[in-house]
């Protein structure tokens, strides 16, 4: 762990905030992707349609 001196709060805060925001974005994207994949598969199975 490097010595951040008196600015530790600002630096750690920035890294923390960035990681948090990116994690939320990635999480939401993955979650929506999985949900949509599942929903589509269900409807395709019900209708007997395939890609194309």
């Amino acid at each position, binding site marked *: 762990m490097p010595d951040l*001196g*008196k600015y530790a709060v*600002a*630096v750690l805060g*920035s890294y923390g*905030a960035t990681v948090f925001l990116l994690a939320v974005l990635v999480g939401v994207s993955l979650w929506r*992707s999985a949900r*949509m994949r599942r929903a*589509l598969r269900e*409807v395709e199975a019900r209708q007997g349609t395939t890609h194309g």
Partner: protein
Amino acid sequence: MQTSARLLPWLAGLSVLCLTAGGIWGFFFTPDDFRQGSTVKIIYLHVPAAMMAINGWIMMLVTSLIWLIRRHHVSALAAKAAGPVGLTMTVIALVTGALWGQPMWGTWWAWDPRLTSFLILTLFYLGYIALWSAVEDPDTAADLTSVLCIVGSVFAVLSRYAVNFWNQGLHQGASLSLDKEENVADVFYLPLLVCIAGFVLLFVTLVLLRTRTEIRARRLQSLLARERMA
């Protein structure tokens, strides 16, 4: 769809690699700036995020134009997918900027031209995303948001000039440019490049992933519509 499916894991892997490498390099193994102390480490997040915030908008503009001219559906959906990603990048740039500005300028927020422009950019992103979610018919939404994106771009540029006219500011000039690399010393420069690459890759990965989701959503919607009609 198949190409992007094969590409996606590689892109995701690479972006994680670059981000971790750049982040660790920047965070642990760079010296403090003699003036700014350890806060200089924020640059590895602030600058790439700000770049992607602007590139995100440019990408939306280009894909919107492609949709309006060529009526290529994937293009419109890619623009839709880029919106939230760009918004997040803008927020990251603003938050890290505020955290950086507090110790450096003694204030979280100043109505500095760059900061103000970014705040306005945030509003543009919000409006764009809100319009996408408000319009039900997907083609109508694509058309309307594309027109908004084009007009918005013109006004964003105008705002940039207007804001400069209004206040000349505290913010240092651009940290990176091709002809003046000495802006930022090499020790900071190399990890910064890695971080930028990481952000670019992350951006591309996320947009691809989200575009795939949007395409599926679109197909789902059509299948359900067909079901109702039958």
